């Protein structure tokens, strides 16, 4: 009779491949993740993109500089203002356009409000990926208030095209400041509810703590930026390192956590919301008066050369690399989007975890699919 003892290697089960996406509740868009599973354990993760590839970089080559800005709102639609901002900054830098002080302040307020909306939506969808549905509605309630403010002042709710080279498209309404003050007050109250419902929750803490470890070395090697990298202890806040539009005059902290796990990423984003509120509060009381934009010529031409501009988007470093040949259209416009490089972190932090952790990891990295696909 043969030896009846079975060694663990013989007990190995068959691995199988599951396509998570492109239509899947947890991918928030059309990302397809090809996951190789051994039972519940993830062995390999391979993301597939391109389901919402619109060729924005190619389209900019046939549009003017001013018109390219409206395309950038469609990249990371959750931080459209910031996307417009980076483009406007790059063009202003190249064409040496002065921006009035009022426009700079409005831009920063809009950016930070946008960061708040983005993080609020992230908070809701992160909780939903982990299985709680109610937070999603709380998040949308609070986001809605800010979007209403955007609607009143910029005209649009999601894809604003509000920040343009030379300033902003139109001045804010006269009741902007009092409304924003009331809004900030209510947001502060709502933040407590977030902590009550999710942050303090025992199940949520156990689902995130110690899961999805991304070491600092890995974060650097993978090119991660934003809250994802800052949760691994990497200082990379563009607002601090390469200040633009007057961030250097404002008092705020760069939020860094050394936990490296999902919980650290969660905490960093939650604290960033507080910092955003703090930044807006500083600007509200002394919003500069004066002109809100510098009038430009109808057709904008940049001097030949190469320009790189970066800003801190809600997800990390958003850069635009413009190659100009001196004409009215960009020769090449490359967007360095934060989600595309952060996507690389999904595999190293998910291998060896359970399939439920993959969803939690993707949620805390905060992937926005159009931002990757462009």
């Amino acid at each position, binding site marked *: 009779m043969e030896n009846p003892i079975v060694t663990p290697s013989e007990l190995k089960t068959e691995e199988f491949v599951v396509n998570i996406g492109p239509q899947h509740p947890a991918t928030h868009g059309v990302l397809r993740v090809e996951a190789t599973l051994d039972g519940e354990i993830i062995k390999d993760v391979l993301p597939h993109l391109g389901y919402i590839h619109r060729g924005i970089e190619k389209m900019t080559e046939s549009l003017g500089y001013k*018109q390219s800005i*409206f395309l950038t709102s469609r990249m990371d639609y959750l931080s459209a203002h910031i996307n417009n901002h980076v483009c406007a900054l790059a063009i202003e830098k190249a064409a040496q356009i002065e921006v009035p002080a009022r426009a700079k302040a409005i831009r920063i307020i809009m950016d930070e409000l946008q960061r708040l909306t983005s993080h609020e939506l992230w908070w809701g969808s992160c909780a939903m990926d982990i299985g709680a549905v109610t937070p999603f509605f709380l998040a949308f309630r609070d986001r809605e208030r800010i979007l209403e403010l955007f609607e009143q*002042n910029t005209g*649009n709710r999601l*894809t604003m095209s509000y920040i343009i080279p030379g300033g902003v498209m139109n001045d804010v309404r006269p009741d902007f400041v009092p409304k924003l003050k009331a809004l900030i007050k209510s947001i502060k109250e709502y933040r407590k509810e977030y902590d*009550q*419902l999710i942050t303090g929750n*025992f199940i949520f*803490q156990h689902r995130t703590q110690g899961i999805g470890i991304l070491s600092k070395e890995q974060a650097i090697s993978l090119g991660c930026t934003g809250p994802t990298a800052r949760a691994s202890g990497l200082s990379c806040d563009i607002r601090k390192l390469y200040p633009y539009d007057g961030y250097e005059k404002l008092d705020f902290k760069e939020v860094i956590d050394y936990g490296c796990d999902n919980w650290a990423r969660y905490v960093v984003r939650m604290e960033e919301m507080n910092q955003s509120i703090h930044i807006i509060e500083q600007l509200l009381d002394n919003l500069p008066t004066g002109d809100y934009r510098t009038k430009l010529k109808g057709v904008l031409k940049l001097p030949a050369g190469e320009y790189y501009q970066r800003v801190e988007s809600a997800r990390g470093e958003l850069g635009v690399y413009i190659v100009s040949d001196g004409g009215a259209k960009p020769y090449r416009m490359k967007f360095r989007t934060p989600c595309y490089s952060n996507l690389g972190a999904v595999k190293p932090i998910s291998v060896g975890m359970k399939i439920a952790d993959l969803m939690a990891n993707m949620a805390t990295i905060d992937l926005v699919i159009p931002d990757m696909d462009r």
Partner: protein
Amino acid sequence: MKALYNYLKEVAFAFVSLANGLLLTLKYFVTPWKSIITENYPDNRANPSVADEFAGEVILIHDENNEHKCTACTLCQLACPNNSIQIISKQVETEDGKKKKVLDKWVYHLEMCTFCKQCIDACPQDAIKMTNSYELSCFDRSTLTKILNQPGSKLKEKPKVTAKVQE
């Protein structure tokens, strides 16, 4: 003993944290009149909460005399990133025999418009504006191509400084 204490502490923390969340949802459940924030959308068409500044459909402003301000300069057409504007102009002869370009058709392709406000920004005459209409869907695609200048409308004449004719 320490382990037992920690074990019990963890269980107690778990219950307290879960009860915290339960209290919040219960608060929302028992006070729906305070917490519910949804809009009663199809029923309150008469009084929607849409800001006046909301950038919806583009219109050509006509005054009470059926006059608009468009000089058919096509700047909006050039500014539009999506080619959703087509200005068709025609040559007419004025009374004093000069040829003049006037607007024939202001064609607006709503289906291609992304509401980026570039045309409004480009217009030197402030002839166009965006309304805050938001119910733009329709059953027939062809109805989305609109001609914005009303039939019979004409260019608003600027109040002329009448030059004194030397006699």
